[in-house]
């Protein structure tokens, strides 16, 4: 009998379909003008991938206890004494388990909707075959990463995701700011990638002999499900090494997920098309970092020091990024900062030991963040600017967009029953439940709670600025109108998810997915009185934030901070992003340049100087020596005679004297 679960062995179809789309659109896109330069083709492939992804997720939901690992061994080195006493394998394969099914759902749904939306949004742009091909490859890489069953395959797709984000952020490569933002994204995440690779090497070296089937290396570094993460237990004696490896993994995730202090690239990545931002922020690039942390914590394990570090990074980033969003005038950058902040919540949850709670927030966040970006894209498409202070009154002409943005905002602010409330509340109560045993988490918990208020404030500040009031503040803006249906449908679908995705938590099968994904540890918290108080607090903070935004910016008002105001320096600090970019630039321009200049000095004057010094010495000497060549025959004869006399003197006088003095035979 054929059942849906048979599909688990065919999970590779999802990346394969998108790779096919990449190849076909990339090669033949310029001849497919009738199909929106291959765009409809890419939508078709994304739709097929969506069907496979949804079916796999559905089958996993029906029976959440299933772990289906399909693999083939690429090569196997036989056992040899030394580092790999049990041999060493490299395998390629797919693992369908609760977490990868969940992620696959997110990636395919958001990917398909973004692809569909692009048809409308990108219609007037040039280079569309390149755009759709790269978008396809991006989705292929991300879905490949999600279903990878071992650490090396994971890293391979991880790098592919990175390079695709580089391509797409720099899509408008004629713009210097776009190409430099692409380079920035690539280089900053590269710092994280190097750390990730170091982490893999440490695991590689220390866990060659431990783990399932007599050695993780012999097993091809496949993620194996156990009741507890196997390596943490097996390598208790190596906890320092494990800590270092965990910090390296955290570094890789921080680079990809734009966590402090590697967050600088994400706001600049707004230089890409808005659709790309939506994809990067919701389903692909930044989700990979959180997914890496979750996978590592479930299959490999973190030490308690690592956990504290992860909680610290996540909790701090949550607040830190939210403060920067408060003052920014660019609609896309406000949402970008909110992504960094929300990713902080996910990292926080994973660090506190609740990987599945973090992934639940990732799941809901993917929908409402994609919604917010696509709504913002709709606005930008209509008015042609990203400056919030030029917009205003768009509510009247763009009802669907205004409603979608509001729903996304409510979900982001954590107002029940919207999606963000349930997952954010889970994150907060998960961390709260760890506070008695880990008092060090307190400051980061407080920061995360405080960020709820800021989040609600800044997203509704953006909403009021763009949509409330009577008319745009800049009268030169074109008359706004809704986009075509391909842009509205994704907004409606994502709105439905943004409203309802959080309610999934009440579906027993979905709960089962989260429970089984977590193994024995990291079960989502049950709701009790303390949680109720916490929920009430966070909802109150959210409502207060919205209220403040309404008071300051509602009805098209513009709140202008007086120049003499004491918080003016703070505002400048936030607008300048805490001078982080300036600082990094300074490190690059001054620090590295100084070192480079010193190296240049050594190279030029010490090393080259020595070489040139020898050269000049011999040139000088030979020039002196050359002068004895007069060309006059008598002079040469004189030298010969002088030499002869010298030989005679040597033989007749010096040699006998030396023999007499020192003896000899």
């Amino acid at each position: 009998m054929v059942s849906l679960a048979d599909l688990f062995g065919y999970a590779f179809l999802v990346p394969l379909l998108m790779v096919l789309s990449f190849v076909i659109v990339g090669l033949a896109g310029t001849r497919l003008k009738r199909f929106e330069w291959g765009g409809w083709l890419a939508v078709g492939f994304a739709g097929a991938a969506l069907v496979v992804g949804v079916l796999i997720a559905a089958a996993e939901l029906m029976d959440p206890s299933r772990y289906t690992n399909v693999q083939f061994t690429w090569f196997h080195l036989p056992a040899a004494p030394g580092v790999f006493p049990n041999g060493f394998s490299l395998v390629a394969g797919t693992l369908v388990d609760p977490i990868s099914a969940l992620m696959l759902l997110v990636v395919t749904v958001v990917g398909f909707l973004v692809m569909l939306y692009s048809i409308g949004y990108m219609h007037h742009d040039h280079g569309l075959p390149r755009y759709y091909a790269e978008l396809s490859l991006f989705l292929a890489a991300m879905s490949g990463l999600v279903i990878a069953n071992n650490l090396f395959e994971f890293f391979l797709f991880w790098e592919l995701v990175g390079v695709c984000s580089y391509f797409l952020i720099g899509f408008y490569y004629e713009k210097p700011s776009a190409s430099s933002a692409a380079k920035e994204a690539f280089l900053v995440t590269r710092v994280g990638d190097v750390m990730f690779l170091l982490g893999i090497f440490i695991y590689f070296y220390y866990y060659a002999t431990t783990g399932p089937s007599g050695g993780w290396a012999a097993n091809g570094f496949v993620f194996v499900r156990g009741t507890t993460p196997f390596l943490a237990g097996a390598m208790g004696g190596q906890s320092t090494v494990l800590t270092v490896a965990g910090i390296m993994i955290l570094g890789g995730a921080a680079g990809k997920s734009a966590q402090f202090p590697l967050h600088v690239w994400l706001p600049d990545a707004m230089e890409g098309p808005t659709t790309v931002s939506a994809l990067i922020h919701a389903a692909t690039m930044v989700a990979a970092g959180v997914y890496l942390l979750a996978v590592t914590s479930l299959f490999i394990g973190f030490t308690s020091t690592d956990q504290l570090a992860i909680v610290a990074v996540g909790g701090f980033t949550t607040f830190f990024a939210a403060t920067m969003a408060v003052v920014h005038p660019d609609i896309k950058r406000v949402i970008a900062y909110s992504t960094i902040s929300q990713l902080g919540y996910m990292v926080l949850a994973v660090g506190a030991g609740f990987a599945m709670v973090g992934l639940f927030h990732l799941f809901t966040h993917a929908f409402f963040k994609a919604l917010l970006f696509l709504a913002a894209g709709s606005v930008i498409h209509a008015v042609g600017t990203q400056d919030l202070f030029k917009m205003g009154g768009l509510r009247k002409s763009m009802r669907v967009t205004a409603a979608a943005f509001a729903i996304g905002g409510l979900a982001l602010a954590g107002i029940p029953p919207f999606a963000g409330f349930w997952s954010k509340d889970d994150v907060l109560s998960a961390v709260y439940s760890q506070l008695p045993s880990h008092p060090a988490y307190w400051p980061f918990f407080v920061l995360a709670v405080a960020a709820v208020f800021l989040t609600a404030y800044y997203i509704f500040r953006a909403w009021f600025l763009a949509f409330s009031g009577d008319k745009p503040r800049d009268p030169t803006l074109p008359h706004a109108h809704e986009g075509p249906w391909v842009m509205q449908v994704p907004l409606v679908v994502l709105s439905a998810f943004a409203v309802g995705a959080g309610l999934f938590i009440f579906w027993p099968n979905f709960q089962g997915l989260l429970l089984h994904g977590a193994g024995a540890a990291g079960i989502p918290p049950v709701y009790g009185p303390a949680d109720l108080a916490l929920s009430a607090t966070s909802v109150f903070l959210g409502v207060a934030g919205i209220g403040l935004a309404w008071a300051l910016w509602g009805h098209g008002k513009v709140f202008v901070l007086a120049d003499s105001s004491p918080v003016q320096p703070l505002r400048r600090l936030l607008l300048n992003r805490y001078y982080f970019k300036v600082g990094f630039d300074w490190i690059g321009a001054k620090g590295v340049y100084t070192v480079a200049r010193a190296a240049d000095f050594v190279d030029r004057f010490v090393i080259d100087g020595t070489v040139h010094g020898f050269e000049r010495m011999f040139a000088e000497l030979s020039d002196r020596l050359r002068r004895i060549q007069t060309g006059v025959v008598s002079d040469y004869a004189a030298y010969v005679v002088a030499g002869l006399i010298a030989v005679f003197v040597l033989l007749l006088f010096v040699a006998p004297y030396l023999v007499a003095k020192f003896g000899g035979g």
Partner: protein
Amino acid sequence: MSGLPIVGFVGLSAALLAVGIFGILTRRNFILLLIAIEIAMNAGILNFVYFAAYTGGTAGLTGQAIAVVLVGFAATEVAVGLAIVLALNRLRGSINVAEATELRR
């Protein structure tokens, strides 16, 4: 034969050599230079002849033979030298060796 006066003969050839070397170092005329070289060379040949006679017997014949060969060498050397003199004269219109310094570099 061993009664020959060594100091006299060796002194004669040493004097000849000194005269030759003096000529080589001081003469600027190519022909005079060649003559000086001949004188210095003949000092050497004279030494061969003298020491061959001093040694005597068959062993001494070797010295005499070398002396004859060296006379031949001296003749060829003069032939080559005079050819150079002619060529130099044709080239520069002068046989002053101090002026012929082109081969310096």
